[in-house]
């Protein structure tokens, strides 16, 4: 859905999620989860309004970098089955 090649920056300019002052502590689980929720909420709101979902890619990149993929896969499975506990 999101083209990984298009997101790659030019060589020499690596980027990764920046320091988020909302989550200053060692346990970053909330950072990962919050960005996951924000991504899905952004997608839902923007598709409902018929707008482009390109701005939501930031949240995707952040949670994709921070969250273990197994967690993301299980959350996506829950969303697909309608049993996800978070509010989207």
């Amino acid at each position, binding site marked *: 859905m999101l083209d*990984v090649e298009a*997101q*790659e920056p030019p*060589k*020499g300019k*690596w*980027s*990764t*999620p*920046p*320091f988020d002052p909302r989550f*200053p502590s*060692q*346990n*970053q*689980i909330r*950072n*990962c989860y919050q960005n996951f929720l924000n991504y899905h909420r952004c997608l839902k709101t923007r598709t409902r309004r018929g707008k482009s979902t390109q701005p939501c890619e930031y949240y995707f990149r952040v949670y*994709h*970098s*921070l*969250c*273990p*993929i*197994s967690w993301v896969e299980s959350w996506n499975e829950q969303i697909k089955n309608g049993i996800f506990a978070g509010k989207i």
Partner: protein
Amino acid sequence: MAHATQVGLQDATSPIMEELIIFHDHALMIIFLICFLVLYALFLTLTTKLTNTSISDAQEMETVWTILPAIILVLIALPSLRILYMTDEVNDPSFTIKSIGHQWYWTYEYTDYGGLIFNSYMLPPLFLEPGDLRLLDVDNRVVLPVEAPVRMMITSQDVLHSWAVPTLGLKTDAIPGRLNQTTFTATRPGVYYGQCSEICGANHSFMPIVLELIPLKIFEMGPVFTL
């Protein structure tokens, strides 16, 4: 890695570890001085032929041996707190890697771009090549760039583990349900070893960590697979 019979810390590969080594030397020197002083006083007490049955007041000495330890403790605490706050500094990392502990191997995820996910098992003794390190070498090393702040996100899929690399001054617990973050900046290329540092079952001693730090230009060329 540590050589056989090594007692001291390994050489530093990150600025924080350099500070920790300096602090360790400072604190150890104070400890040696105190131990020597106490042993010397004990020796004198045990070997003297003098006797004394009438001392009842030693106000000045008691004041000195209360104030002096307080000063020594402050001299230890100040550098210690300085380093503690240094490890907590905000630094914008250039790279994020996830490390997930399992029984009994590590999974590494490089997901800043695309998704490179692989497992890192210890090489069994039968699979060792000449020159490989027993109980330390792994099949897939964690390859990272030098001189770039790297953010490690560490968690576990099952029980407690701990991701430790002594030469970088790193030890972070891998706790299921928690995503611990640690950052480091390596100052020189090389291959660095660590071992799981939280008891996690039968093969706790057999799930090592190997970091391969390479120059950024070579790292940017992308993964190179050799057979």
